[in-house]
C-alpha cells in the first residue's frame, strides 16, 4: 500500500493546481476579449473549483483531523501549496491564458482518462466525473490555439511569445515527484511516461494545424509540487484567502 501521506500529498497537487487555476481564470471575469470568451473562461473556472472541492474533501477525509475543504483551501500558506508552477503564471494576454490552459489540458486529458482505472475507488470516481469537463476544456483551448496560431500575423506572433514564455513550466507536469512515484508503483496513478507520449501527441497535432512549433532544449522549472513557488503565488493567496484570514470562520 502507498502511504497515506503520499496519497494526500498527490491529491493536494491536483487540488491546489485546480484551485489556483480557477482563481487565475476568475481574474478574467469582466475583462474577457469578448463576452462569449469571458463566459467561457469563468465557466471553466467554475469546473475547476468544483473539481478542487471534490479533491479537498477527499484529502481532508484521509487526513482525519476534522478539517474541511475550506480549511485546506484558505488556511494553508504558500510553502504548503503544491500546485504546478504553470497554473500560477499570470494571465498575460489572451494568448498566454489560452496556451497555459492548452498545455494543462493536454496533460490532464490523458491523465484523468487513465485515472478512471485507478486502484483507488474515490479517485476513480472523481476522474469519471472530471473527464468530460476536461474534454470540453481541451476542445476549447485547442480551437483557440489553432485560431490564434493560424490567424493574423499579430495573433500568431502573440501566441508564439506565449509558448516561449510558458513551455519552461511544462516539464513539471509529467515529472513525478516521490509521492506520485509511490502511487504510480501501486497503480493508483497512471504511468507518467505514457501520459507524456499522449500529451506530446495532442500538442504536436494542434501545433501542426496552427502552424506553430514547440521549442526544444528548454530549461524546465521544477518545484511547485514540493511547495517551491515563484513570488506570484503569494499574491494569489493573499487575495484569495483574505476573507478567511481576516474574519476566521466567516460563512456566506
Amino acid at each position: 500500500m502507498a502511504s497515506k501521506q503520499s496519497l494526500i500529498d498527490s491529491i493536494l497537487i491536483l487540488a491546489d493546481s485546480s484551485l489556483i487555476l480557477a482563481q487565475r481564470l476568475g481574474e478574467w471575469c469582466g475583462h474577457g476579449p469578448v463576452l462569449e470568451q469571458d463566459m467561457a473562461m469563468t465557466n471553466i473556472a467554475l469546473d475547476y473549483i468544483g473539481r478542487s472541492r471534490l479533491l479537498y474533501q477527499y484529502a481532508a477525509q484521509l487526513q482525519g483531523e476534522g478539517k474541511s475543504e475550506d480549511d485546506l483551501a484558505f488556511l494553508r500558506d504558500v510553502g504548503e501549496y503544491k500546485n504546478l508552477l504553470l497554473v500560477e503564471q499570470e494571465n498575460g494576454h489572451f494568448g498566454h491564458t489560452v496556451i497555459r490552459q492548452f498545455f494543462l489540458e493536454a496533460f490532464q486529458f490523458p491523465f484523468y482518462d487513465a485515472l478512471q482505472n485507478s486502484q483507488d475507488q474515490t479517485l476513480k470516481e472523481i476522474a469519471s466525473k472530471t473527464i468530460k469537463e476536461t474534454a470540453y476544456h481541451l476542445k476549447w483551448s485547442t480551437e483557440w490555439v489553432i485560431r490564434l496560431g493560424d490567424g493574423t500575423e499579430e495573433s500568431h506572433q502573440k501566441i508564439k511569445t506565449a509558448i516561449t514564455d510558458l513551455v519552461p513550466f511544462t516539464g513539471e507536469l509529467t515529472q513525478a515527484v516521490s509521492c506520485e512515484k509511490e502511487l504510480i508503483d501501486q497503480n493508483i496513478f497512471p504511468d507518467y511516461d505514457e501520459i507524456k507520449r499522449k500529451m506530446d501527441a495532442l500538442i504536436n497535432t494542434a501545433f501542426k494545424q496552427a502552424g506553430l512549433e514547440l521549442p526544444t532544449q528548454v530549461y524546465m522549472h521544477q518545484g511547485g509540487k514540493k511547495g517551491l513557488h515563484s513570488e506570484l503565488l503569494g499574491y494569489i493567496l493573499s487575495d484569495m484567502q483574505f476573507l478567511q484570514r481576516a474574519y476566521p470562520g466567516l460563512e456566506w
Partner: protein
Amino acid sequence: MVIEQKNTKEYIFSLLEEVCDPEIPVLSILDLGIVRRVDLLENQLEIDITPTYTGCPAMSLIEATIKAHLEQMTQKTVIIKTVLSPAWTTDWISESGKIKLKEYGIAAPQNQARIQNILFQKEQVACPRCESLNTVLVAEFGSTACKSLYKCSDCLEPFDYFKCH
C-alpha cells in the same frame, strides 16, 4: 388511510417531482435524473443524489430544497447523500424532460454523451423554435457551464443548447 398513503415510495417520488432545477425551472430533479436512491425508513428518509457538473452552483440549493420540502411534507428526518459514481450523464435526462426543455426554448442534448463525440463531432443542433437545422455555434460555453450558445440562421433567434455531458 392518508397516513398509509404518505408512507409509500410513490408519494415520496411525487414530492421529488415537485422539486425543480433552480436554473431550468421547467425540469424537476426526476426529469434531470439526479435522484439515485430513495430509502424510506421508520422516522427517516435517505436520498442519494448525484451532481450534474462538479462546479454546478445549483447543487447545494437543490439539496437544501429537497430537504426542506420533504421534511415539511413527511415529518421525517431527511438525510441526503451525494454519490459520484456512476457519474451523471445527460443520457439520464428523461424523455419528458427533453420535451419540456424544448418547449422552454432550450435544445436538448441529442447525442450520447461519449468523450469521442465531445471531442470530434460537429453537432447538428435543431432550433427549438422552428426546428431548422440551419444553426451555428456562437459559443461553446453559454449562460451556464452545461449549455452552449447557438443561433438559428432561419428564424434568427439565439438559443441555448444543453450540451452532451
